[in-house]
């Protein structure tokens, strides 16, 4: 019950056989807290249990839908996008083009990423192109020229270096980056 009982814990050489030190002395909790969304070892303003994915990091591969409430006034709004009583649908590239042009850039990005292999993905692609956004085939993100800067075309004409505004779908925001753009990479 005395101090010598602590020796196996603190003496480096003796550490392995007697106790599992990850449980006794424990570990640095900063990465664990970080994985929970609690920054800097301080209590977070966020309630992390409300979006808790799993007790283990390894099984927390995706976000889980938290509780949310949709007020009645947000639902069944008639005649959105002049579609009459039924909610708007985007089933025809020719017919639904006009509706798509009413959306803001962020809405177009949302529809593009949310509905793969659909008419609406195609429609949003066409509309974003009209607004001078280009889709990068390998990065799978949209970008547009920064109006404040003229890019410099490389000799050979295969690429240009310039300042672009990217839309980051992970952080859901536009961000400016200097970038070397290869023309065959965009569409």
């Amino acid at each position, binding site marked *: 019950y005395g101090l*010598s009982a*602590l020796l196996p814990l603190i003496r480096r050489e003796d550490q392995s056989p007697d*106790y599992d030190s990850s*449980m006794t002395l424990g570990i640095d*909790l900063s990465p664990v807290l970080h994985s929970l969304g609690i920054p800097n070892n301080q209590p977070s303003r966020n309630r992390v*249990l409300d979006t808790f994915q799993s007790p283990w990091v390894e099984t927390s591969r995706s976000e889980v839908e938290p509780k949310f409430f949709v007020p009645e006034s947000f639902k069944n709004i008639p005649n959105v996008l002049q579609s009459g009583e039924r909610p708007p649908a985007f089933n025809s590239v020719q017919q639904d083009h006009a509706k798509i042009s009413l959306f803001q850039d962020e809405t177009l990005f949302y529809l593009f990423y949310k509905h793969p292999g659909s008419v609406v993905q195609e429609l949003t692609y066409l509309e974003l192109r009209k607004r001078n956004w280009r889709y990068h085939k390998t990065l799978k993100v949209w970008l547009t020229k920064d109006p404040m800067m003229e890019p410099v075309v490389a000799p050979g004409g295969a690429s240009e270096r310039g300042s672009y505004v990217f839309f980051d779908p992970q952080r859901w925001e536009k961000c400016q980056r200097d970038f070397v753009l290869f023309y065959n990479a965009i569409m």
Partner: protein
Amino acid sequence: TNKERMLLVFTEWVKLLQRVPSDDVKVAVFISQMIEKGVLSETNNVIEFTKAALELSVGSFKESDPTSEVFTATDAFSKLIVNLLVLQDFSEVDRSSYFKLIFSVITFVFSEDQGKTENTFNERPYFRLFSSLLCDWEDISSHNFVKVEDQRCRAQLVEFNKEFYRVIASFLHAYQPIAFPGFSFAWITLISHRMFLPKMLKLPEKAGWSQLVLLFTDLLKFMAQYTKKQDVPDAVSVVYKGALRVFLAVANDAPEFLVENHYELLNNLPHVYMQLRNVVLSAFPKHVSIPNPYNPKLSIDTVKICDQPPNVFYDPVHDLKTLKKPVDNYLRIPSASLSRTISSNVFRSEYEKDNGIGFDTVSVDVKLINAIVLHVGIEAALEKQRTTANAVFNVKSSYYTLLADLLNDGTTEVRFHVVQAIANQLRYPNAHTQWFNYVLKNFFNSEEWGENKTEIQEIIVRTLLERIVTNKPHCWGIIVTFTDLLKSTECSLMDLPFVKDVPEVELIIKHL
């Protein structure tokens, strides 16, 4: 057969839910027709239907292509249960009994499946059912069931809501890892589920707390039972990691749960989990501002918030057993005979194995000692509020002498566990921390121990040190108390023989 007909109805239900949104009127009509046609008219039918639907859901999970939607039937079954709870008229049977009946049948099917399949049992469809139930209930219950138009029904459901979670909690207790090890990981995921744990933590009047403590105790007991000092099985080590993360999340969101339940949680926390113990004990209520414990000028007696006793959810007086009267009588009027009664009744009738740092067995009733110590602290803080600080910050007060007598009359083992129990109260700045700081400092410097002084001092130093050498977090009260000992002019820690005897410890103390 009846079963086949029920399966047909359930299959139709599954198909319906894939074709219409769950708030479509056709869903309510389906339920209404089910009831009209007597599909669930009697208890036996409810049992048979539940059994059939669950067996089909689990079967369909097992047979589905793992890359496709494997939980369609399970999710549909969850929605059925929620709809039955919301849409039926419960004038003859109460909702709670109905829900318990369904859950009992689920448990029966689960347990049979577990028994039959043993090592090939797959917990996932059962997990999914409970998870989806929690999600679907959250959906209908949000904003006090505002989606339910019938006001009378809505009022009933608001009333029933906490019962819903309490029933789930009570069944989760039955599914605990010691009972169903093949469900352990699903179970831990369920007790920490985003639609369960925060709800239980926040039910009005702390209505979910007792059951949560019970569930956390189930988890801790399981870990305690199978954590060997050496050679922790990998799976148990993973359980520990998950438990740690859950406790950290609770400490962030609802530290008051840990603050108010520290006594019960620690009664079941294996001694070897020193960091986890610190996580529980270093929780402090939101909005409490903690002065820097490393400030050398800090004096605990000038910390204003030490006027406040901490809330204790479960009164340890219930655990005093036959010692309740002697303890309370002693606190009122101390006497040697009462003290002897207390000291001689803290032992167990047989040895128990324990995972301690430096010990393998325990012959004292540690829970009883914890109860005595906390009870005395609670009473001392109350006395201070009723009368004056001098009444309890006084080595002649009965509060102090009761604990001192335990040390004086006790074996080394008793002394150790009493000091540990005191250290468990050295938490964030509050009235208990302040009083026990006083007690421990005086114990350390006291001359009343005679030849036992060195032993008692060593136990105190060991107890404090073991809570500081761990990785963070560290309890405010422990740091402040240890600092007080380090600063003490009455006795230099560095001069103590037991410190000098262990160079590593001497070095640490010198460093500190």
